[in-house]
């Protein structure tokens, strides 16, 4: 820094642009003693990323003690699950919270993953922005390589204790134990202790962090987080012991791992100018055409030539020689060219049925439905929306529905209001699906709605990964998924009403039939025996008509608007009124909906042209 300043000073003197200033009014005080910029320059220095986060811990989700506990466990558990899946191992993760003293906790997270080679351990756990996932385009829970080291840093700041890691990569290798701290000024690991240890696991990693925290139950608690994690990862077993020594075992219900996500090259539609320039500089290809075909997905020779033509560049231009304004032309040429959507094998959705099974095991309801949308694209990045709904049973019917938000198999507990999921739910018309809803609000009803966004790059509103950003493409897909589930829900709710209706009607027969017999007995002076016969006959007739009615689905409306016919109150009757005609209108809507979806799917691939 200082050297640079001197150099600049030299340059300035050499050019001598403002000689009167440098020698004039300041005279005598040395050449540059009073120039403020030089004074300021002394204070200007590089900021270590670790120091930055030391001061801005809220950016990473450590804004308060309660949230800190959750974030630390979340980061560790996410890493464990990612590691297991990448290694093709069905995850089994143990999470434990121990209260050391007031507001001081020890968390320990242990997995059966592939383990980490000895040399990498310090950097992974004690250097911020170090990781395997940042530069690849494939779906994973982690993205930046900040999370776990930030948790370690937070523990170090609040308790002064190092993070402890033990990891084993194979039964044939010894386990390695580390105690690490982060040198915040250099953002580099500092090894406090390092040794070989006996560990009876075949392979896996266990970490321990001491930190200042508060343990609480409730909506945004560790308990809830792990429960939702179990829902969205039905292939994982989680064993969790909280600080009250209560143990929860979330057992695996799916014995197959979700398909492995493959790494893909960026799609041209998702590339911005700065990034393109960087790619051009750093690439090894000799021609622009081969650069385009090899560095991007979905670009063949034909497409590459078309792009070059539109950008008025020769296909055999050296990529490294392309200048900024040419790169700009290249970007606009890319946007004018039709390129098929990126491949979707970079995604690892959990599957509609699995998500539904996840809900089934943790939510006690009477009806479950789920759907998965076909892959779609935002900013050149493919994504899939999956949705599941649980309805009825022990869920409360007088409260707003419970939303479970997931991004890349990670539950999101904070910032619900700012999330695209919430936006998609509040802008869907739930009245059509049998829930009550005032405009612009969450629907009310006995319902849990789970929405999962699987994407190579989930757009969060902040680094703390708390809410999904409002991309119109994403919200649109979410709404379509919600509508698909909603229609199933309506079908179930209607069926439920029909059954109720049938029960109610049966009770009508029992209630009013004797009166018809009594009246006729009085009118015709019949005997008791005749009355009985009459009753039998009426019953037969009514049962017959009831069957016909239920076949024709209440085509015959009750003719008397005088007396409320319901036994169990007018509420059901109202619902019945709402429910029945809707089934028909839904049927129509459904057809329309399908058609519309199809059209959109086609047009969507090229929608990014506008970006």
């Amino acid at each position: 820094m200082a050297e640079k300043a001197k150099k600049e000073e030299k340059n300035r003197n050499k050019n001598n642009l403002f000689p009167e200033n440098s020698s004039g009014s300041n005279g005598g005080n040395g050449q540059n003693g009073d120039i403020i910029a030089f004074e300021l320059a002394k204070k200007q220095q590089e900021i270590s990323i670790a120091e930055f986060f030391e001061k801005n811990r809220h950016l990473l989700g450590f804004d308060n003690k309660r949230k800190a506990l959750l974030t630390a466990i979340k980061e560790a558990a996410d890493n464990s699950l990612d590691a297991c899946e990448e290694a093709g191992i069905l995850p089994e993760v143990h999470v434990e919270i121990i209260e050391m003293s007031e507001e001081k906790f020890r968390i320990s997270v242990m997995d059966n993953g592939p383990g980490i080679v000895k040399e990498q351990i310090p950097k992974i756990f004690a250097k911020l922005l170090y990781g395997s996932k940042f530069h690849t385009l494939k779906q994973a829970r982690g993205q930046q390589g900040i999370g776990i080291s930030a948790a370690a840093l937070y523990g170090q700041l609040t308790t002064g204790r190092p993070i402890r890691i033990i990891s084993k990569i194979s039964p044939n290798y010894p386990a390695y134990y580390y105690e690490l701290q982060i040198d915040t000024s250099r953002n580099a690991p500092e090894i406090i202790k390092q040794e070989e240890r006996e560990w009876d696991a075949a392979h896996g990693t266990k970490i321990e962090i001491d930190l200042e925290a508060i343990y609480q139950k409730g909506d945004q608690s560790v308990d809830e987080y792990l429960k939702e994690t179990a829902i969205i990862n039905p292939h994982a077993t989680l064993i969790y012991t909280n600080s009250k020594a209560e143990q929860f075992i979330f057992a695996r219900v799916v014995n197959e791992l979700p398909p492995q996500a493959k790494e893909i090259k960026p799609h041209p539609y998702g590339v911005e100018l700065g990034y393109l320039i960087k790619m051009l500089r750093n690439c090894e290809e000799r021609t622009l055409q081969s650069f385009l075909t090899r560095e991007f997905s979905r670009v063949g020779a034909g497409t590459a030539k078309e792009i070059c033509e539109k950008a008025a560049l020769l296909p055999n231009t050296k990529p490294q020689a392309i200048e900024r304004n040419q790169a700009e032309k290249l970007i606009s040429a890319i946007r004018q060219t039709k390129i098929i959507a990126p491949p979707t094998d970079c995604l690892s959705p959990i599957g509609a049925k699995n998500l539904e099974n996840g809900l089934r095991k943790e939510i006690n309801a009477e009806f479950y439905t789920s759907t998965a949308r076909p892959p779609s694209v935002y900013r050149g990045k493919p994504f899939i929306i999956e949705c599941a709904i649980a309805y009825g049973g022990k869920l409360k019917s007088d409260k707003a529905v419970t939303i479970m938000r997931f991004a890349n198999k990670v539950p999101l507990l904070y910032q619900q209001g700012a999330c695209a999921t919430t936006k998609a739910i509040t802008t869907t018309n739930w009245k059509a699906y049998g829930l009550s809803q005032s405009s612009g609000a969450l629907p009310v009803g006995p319902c849990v709605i789970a929405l999962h966004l699987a994407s190579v790059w989930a757009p969060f509103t902040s680094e703390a990964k708390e809410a999904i950003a409002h991309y119109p493409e994403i919200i649109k897909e979410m709404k379509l998924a919600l509508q698909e589930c909603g229609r199933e829900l309506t079908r179930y709710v209607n069926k439920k009403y029909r059954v109720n209706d049938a029960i109610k009607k049966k009770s009508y027969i029992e209630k009013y039939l004797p009166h018809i017999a009594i009246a006729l007995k009085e009118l015709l002076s019949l005997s008791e025996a005749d009355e009985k016969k009459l009753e039998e006959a009426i019953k037969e007739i009514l049962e017959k008509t009831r069957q016909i009615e239920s076949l024709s689905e209440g085509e015959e409306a009750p003719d008397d608007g005088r007396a409320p016919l319901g036994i169990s109150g007018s509420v059901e009757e109202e619902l019945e009124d709402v429910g029945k005609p809707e089934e028909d209108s839904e049927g129509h809507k459904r057809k329309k909906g399908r058609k519309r979806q199809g059209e959109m799917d086609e047009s969507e691939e090229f929608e990014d042209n506008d970006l």
Partner: protein
Amino acid sequence: MMNEEMLKKIRELSEGLYNKIMHRSKPQLSIPVRALSNVEYNKQDGYFEIGPDKKTRALTVNTSKTFAQTLRMLALSKNLVETDDIATKREAYYVSKNWGDARFLEQPESDMVMDDIEAMFMVNREQLGFIPEEKGGDVSGRLIVIDADPETGKEIRIDCTKMGTGAYSIPSSVEHLKFDTNAEFILAIETAGMYQRLVKHAYWKKSNSILISLGGVPTRACRRFIRRLSDEMKIPVYVFTDGDPYGYLNIYRTLKVGSGNAAHINKYFCVPKAKYFGITPQDIIDYKLPTHPLKDIDIKRVRDGFKNDPFVKAYPEWQKALNQLVSMKKRAEQQALAQHGLNFVITDYLPDKLANPKTWLP
């Protein structure tokens, strides 16, 4: 209609239902639709005749409650007719409280079922043993009503000139009454206030007439009472109401030709020979009467009349009068005549109108 005849009708209907049920087929009740949409103005006989529309109430699960209630109500009626007893509409409602699940929750429900039965047999509810709570109307003037003592059955002659400042009250059933009169006309008056004034000053004496207070839309008994006087004693009937759509289309029209709701019995319960005397829209102008503006509901009533009321459709005179009223946007009450002195109505208005039948409306 004799009680026996009524009982026979009830029995026939019941047997029909019974047989259907025993043959395992759906029993159904067929009830004429009672509404203005299902009446035609029979100009020759001068009343609203019921049309052919019927609603059928087949026994299904959905209708089982009403079906049961209708039959139980019918059984009650049979009982009343057999024992020559009566029940008011309210009493019938309370009787239903013994019916368990089939009981009525509010009286309008039982009234509806009663009206349905009435229409089903095309009879008056009194023939079924049911009577309304409302009384028929007040009478004074040159009329002797011949009734019978309820206990002894002995003939009683009621002289309506000897009611002082009070009045003879029309009973809910008037079929058994006989009359003796030499009055020149009957004046049917809408409001009790105007009636009181005319009685107080013994207008009937001066004009040799019978005064009847309608008290709003006349009850069935009142309509029947006037009808019998009109038919049997051959006395002209003049109707004197407020000059507004309610007076014209509800009170006068119902008195003269009947109503939609009572379509099945209009034949007997209206006074086709009645004439409208006042206050006509032209009277408002001729007598410079103080007015009130027409309310929205008044205008709506006129519009509905033009659209749905066969009576209005049949009389261009009324169409003209109603249009005149609407274009004036004004209405005048009977008592507005007091503007010219409290007894102006006796000294000037009524004699003037009597002398000029051209100012009446049909």
